[in-house]
């Protein structure tokens, strides 16, 4: 049993076999635990001893159902709020140890894009003010330089500066608001972009536009990305590595092509089987994943997925599975992986 540095007992994580420990890692997260006290004796175990790394220029997709801790994980990386225990190392600096003022400046190099594009923009600010705000706060350039930068950013995300600069967020559609959010996030030249379900609130036709735009911005600005989604189909197009989460733990980590063609974890397979197929002649006959995840206040012992897993055995209740490499670059935390 592990004891966290703040005194409480934490559950063992699902292992570190997938860590690449290279100097190219932009972000390294080790043994991250986030817990919320919701009542005197009730603790929500949102993220439990999770480790991962993201290499320069890579896009890591984090996939899982609502409540699996993906957003909490992303926020803990940004120290919003700081995690209960664990390390978050960005470019060699452990953010969890930084004093407040240094943390504030460190945050400029990592930006977040939120799920709801309309409510994440202040409705009283014009597009010009929205994008100028971070530049002004950090004193980047003169007025003229900043205006030029704002125009460039808007052009980059496919908006016409003259047409949009003086309008406010409510005058735009969801897809356009997401473009504005992307321009704002890129204003300070971040190294790392965390996208939290950036296309879930958008129509399919607009989804594709925003996904392509994120890919272009990544190439153009040399970004490293963490991309959070509940939909495996959406992340396939944009990611280099996919991490599947369930109730605050990692189930499987692999490159997208391997993960989609040969999922090794039963949960990954269930997620893949839930994606609707746009072909009436090719409907799946497989059994659907039933029910919803158990409460993170009282997660199952051993493997957390075992209560919904059809392959679960006695061992799954007793012993927590650790990540192991089942194929080159494919890691799975399961006692009975699909082979």
């Amino acid at each position, binding site marked *: 049993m592990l004891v966290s540095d703040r005194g409480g007992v934490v559950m063992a994580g699902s292992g570190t076999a997938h860590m690449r420990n290279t100097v190219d890692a932009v972000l390294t997260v080790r043994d991250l635990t986030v817990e919320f006290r919701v009542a005197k004796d009730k603790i929500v175990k949102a993220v439990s001893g999770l480790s991962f790394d993201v290499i320069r220029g890579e896009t890591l997709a984090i996939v899982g159902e609502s409540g699996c801790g993906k957003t909490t994980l992303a926020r803990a990386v940004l120290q919003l709020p700081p995690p209960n225990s664990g390390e978050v190392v960005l470019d060699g600096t452990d953010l969890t140890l930084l004093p407040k003022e240094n943390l504030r400046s460190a945050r400029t190099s990592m930006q977040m894009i939120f799920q709801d594009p309309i409510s994440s923009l202040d409705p009283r600010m014009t597009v010009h003010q929205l994008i100028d705000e971070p530049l002004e706060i950090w004193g980047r350039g003169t007025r003229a330089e900043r205006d030029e930068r704002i125009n460039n950013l808007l052009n980059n995300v496919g908006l016409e500066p003259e047409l949009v600069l003086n309008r406010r967020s409510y005058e735009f*559609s969801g897809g356009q608001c997401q473009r504005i959010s992307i321009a704002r996030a890129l204003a300070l030249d971040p190294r790392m972009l965390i996208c939290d379900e950036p296309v879930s609130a958008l129509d399919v036709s607009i989804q594709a536009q925003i996904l392509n735009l994120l890919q272009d911005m990544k190439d153009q600005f040399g970004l490293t990305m963490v991309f959070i989604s509940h939909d495996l189909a959406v992340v396939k197009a944009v990611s280099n590595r996919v991490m599947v989460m369930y109730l605050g733990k990692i189930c499987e980590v692999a490159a997208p092509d391997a993960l989609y063609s040969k999922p090794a974890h039963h949960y990954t397979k269930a997620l893949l089987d839930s994606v609707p197929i746009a072909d*009436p002649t090719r409907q799946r006959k497989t059994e659907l994943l039933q029910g919803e995840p158990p409460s993170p206040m009282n997660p199952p012992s051993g493997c957390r997925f075992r209560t919904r897993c059809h392959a679960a055995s006695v061992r799954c209740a007793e012993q927590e599975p650790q990540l192991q490499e089942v194929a080159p670059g494919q890691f799975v935390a399961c006692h009975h992986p699909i082979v």
Partner: protein
Amino acid sequence: MSSLLSVKNMSINFDTPRGSLEAVRGVDIEIPAGTSVGVVGESGSGKTVMCRAAMGLLQGSNVKRSGTVVFDGHELTAMSKEEVRNLFGSGMAMIFQDPMTALNPVRRIGSQLSEGLRVRLGMSKEDALVRSKELLELVRIPNAAAILKSFPYQLSGGMRQRVMIAIAIACNPKLLFADEPTTALDVTVQAQILQLLRELREDLQMSMVLVTHDLGVVAGNTDYVAVMYAGEVVEYAPTTKLFADMRMPYTEALLESIPKVDHKSGTRLAVIAGRLPNPTDRGAGCSFAPRCKYAQEKCHKEHPELKKDPDGHLYRCWFPIGVAL
């Protein structure tokens, strides 16, 4: 086959400070009894307005309606608000996109669920609660007795949508309008809700209109599909026919833009460039022409008529795919 719902030449205009907004233009749609019909289109294409108008819900002073709606022998367009209202519950019912806001947050699930039973079917309070519990079990909610006493905020999105479905089917409607019932939900829960709707439709002999922006959702859950664009139905066909042999370039573009799990990673997604035309000014030609990769001069000038294949496949295009001119 007889039609349960028949919409003929329906147009809906809203008066706005910026002029008249044409939300629905000359829509004809038939819902045969016992079938499921998908209505697909982007945000702003008029799908929701069309459904609400088909239910007789749009009666504000700023709404101009024309055309007829006949449901199960009743001409809704000629009936008063009260008369139409009497058809709700046992004739037609609706489930909405956002299960978070569709339920009353300060009333317990049991009271919201039994309301329709007491008002529409005249049940006593006790009987209605017993039936409510059965309904929750019917939509596969575990521990139904406890859920009856819960408030909406205590339930997850998927559970709330199940409660909405239970309320909608409480009085055995003949036709269920499902307006984006799974858009706000996770893919796993979406699959569960769609499966539930399929099973309920079969058990209760219910017809359904499934409104969605996702052709993937339509594929396994409907018998017919109507594709809407800029307020018009631009294509209508049996679901298998539509996917196998689509005529409209818009339908093709919509299908191509869906991210699929069997795409190779790192490939660019196909997009539909541009966006829907301004609803206060639709222009003279085909509404989709500015975004269409096959558009020719004629498309920008003349509005295409609705054409019909011998098998009943309807489309609105000057240069349809797969048809020799």
